[in-house]
């Protein structure tokens, strides 16, 4: 398995190169110039030219890409133009926040999604099922900036349970996690429900009943386990959301994070930061799918294949 893991990782290298190239091109083709955002009222065109040269923006795109890639291979993500720090330090500064918010939100939507989804599946077509699914549908029709604001109004302004914004302690994490998490819950719950209903009709489940096992145990120990497989695939692909998907929520709750960093830098055309962030996301996504595969393999012997 280890050798397999290594092989899969090595296979990611060309993908990675292609991705880095795409990312680089995309960013540089967007109109806009970071230097415009850098120069101050009153500075001269010469100063602008100097700055442009300083950041290598006067070279051809190919040259710029090669330079960037070379640095990258040395583990250097470059220096932010507007934010004036090493990109790596910006990323390491923001990553923990994204991980905390995204990770917990993912956990939340996974746990709540699976629980509600399986409840809905077990009590299929009952009032409980309809109620749960309706609630989830309702939750997913509210854009996240509204949901966030709503949460603040209810839980912070009215009830005063949580701080309005910020990222100082776990307290301030609750509302953002709920906001991001609720969006994902719908997806997980739906997939879980559909998968469970599907699996429950399989022959082996009938046989489990025929063995005299308690229905609840069958649902939880056997059916759910199978239903988790598609959920895992989806979660693996969702790593992207963990790191970058919470932009609106980050803005509403005034939290730092990779998403916000990315969007702000994109707006200011701070190329190195955007490149760095997108690359991070791409890597995370690749790792996410990889991890998803590994978990799949751990759960499902068929995927695992004949490992000697």
């Amino acid at each position, binding site marked *: 398995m280890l050798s397999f893991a290594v092989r899969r990782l090595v296979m990611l290298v060309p993908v990675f190169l292609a991705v880095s190239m795409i990312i680089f091109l995309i960013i540089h083709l967007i109109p806009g110039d970071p230097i415009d955002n850098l120069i101050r009222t009153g500075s001269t065109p010469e100063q602008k030219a100097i700055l442009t040269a300083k950041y290598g923006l006067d070279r051809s795109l190919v040259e710029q890409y090669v330079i960037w890639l070379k640095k990258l291979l040395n583990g250097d993500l470059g220096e932010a133009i507007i934010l004036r720090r090493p990109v790596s330090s910006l990323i390491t500064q923001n990553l923990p926040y994204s991980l905390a918010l995204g990770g917990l939100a993912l956990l939340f939507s996974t746990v709540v999604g699976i629980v509600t989804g399986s409840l809905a599946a077990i009590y299929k077509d009952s009032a409980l099922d309809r109620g749960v699914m309706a609630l989830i549908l309702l939750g997913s029709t509210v854009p996240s900036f509204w949901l966030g604001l709503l949460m603040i109004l209810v839980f912070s302004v009215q009830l005063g349970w949580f701080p309005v914004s910020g990222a100082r302690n776990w307290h301030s994490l609750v509302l953002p996690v709920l906001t991001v998490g609720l969006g994902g819950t719908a997806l997980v719950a739906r997939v879980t429900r559909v998968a469970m209903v599907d699996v429950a009709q399989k022959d082996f489940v009938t046989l489990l009943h025929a063995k*005299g096992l308690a229905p609840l145990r069958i649902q939880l120990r056997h059916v759910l386990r199978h239903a988790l497989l598609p959920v895992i695939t989806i979660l693996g692909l969702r790593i992207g959301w963990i790191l970058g998907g919470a932009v609106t929520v980050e803005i509403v709750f005034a939290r730092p994070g990779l998403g916000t960093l990315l969007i702000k830098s994109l707006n200011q055309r701070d190329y190195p930061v955007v490149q760095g962030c997108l690359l991070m996301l791409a890597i995370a996504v690749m790792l996410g799918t990889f991890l998803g595969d590994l978990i799949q393999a751990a759960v499902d012997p*068929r995927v695992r294949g004949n490992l000697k």
Partner: protein
Amino acid sequence: MALLSVRDLSITIGRMQPLDRISFDLGKGEILGVVGESGSGKSLTAMSVMGLLPLIRGRITSGQVLFDGIDLTRLKEKEYRALRGRRIALITQNPMTSLDPVLTVGSQIDQVSRLHLGLVPAEAKARSIDLMQQLRISEAEVVHDQYPHQLSGGMKQRIVIAMALAADPDLIIADEPTTALDVTIQAQIMQILVELVRDRGLALMLITHDMGVVAQTCDRVVVLYAGRVAERNTVTEIFAAPQHPYTRALIGCIPRTASQPGSLTGIPGMVPSVLDYPSGCRFHPRCALAQAVCCDTVPPLEPVGVGGLTGCGLAACHFAGESAPAKGMRHG
């Protein structure tokens, strides 16, 4: 007294009534064949006896299922569960899909003896391995820890049988246990089942649509057609002197090497859908003997005794025993 006695069992699923007054008996050490075309209600009969109808939102509307004197239809779910797998075991049609693909086959057998016999894991494992060996699975210890996808169909079916046997049941319901298997493997499995019944005194309800299997293994036969019993008799009489035109037609459908080309008779038309069963005798649209009465009146299941062999045969036909050549299907 019979171990299992189904009396006038009728069930509904939604608005459909797929089984209508099914009755039959099955004694210890006996093999009862349940035959009929696809959709005639064989599997539902098995599900009813297993008490698994709720899974498919079905319900018993009338009749009794007496097992060892207990009326199963009145049993509480919990009591039923104690019985299921313990005294009545099920073998399903398709071994490929009957095992949980993510668990080792051994653990799936162990589950039964641990649940019903209260064995500790080690004991359960030993018992399972022992069972597997009895079913002539070579290298049972290794197989115990393998996953279903690593086994061949025949092996899997034997695992399912081992599962059924794990708590020493009195009654096994085998729903087409060999249809998904190759002929050579099918023979192997059938032989194992027959031996089990003979050696352990089990009762086996064998659901199949293969008249050959019935002929070779069963003691008695129930022929189902469109949710009703068409005929019931001992295996010898069914084959020697089928009373119901449907039974006769079924037997005529089997190709025999010795027969001449064109000698094969089919049954014209098709099995009616549960949504619109014909009135009267449900076989009448396909029956060569059908008369006006067949369309209106449901023929009761009555004793027939042509030649008076045993006198326990029953058939549901207004013209039982009358021989007219079953209408063979020939293209025009």
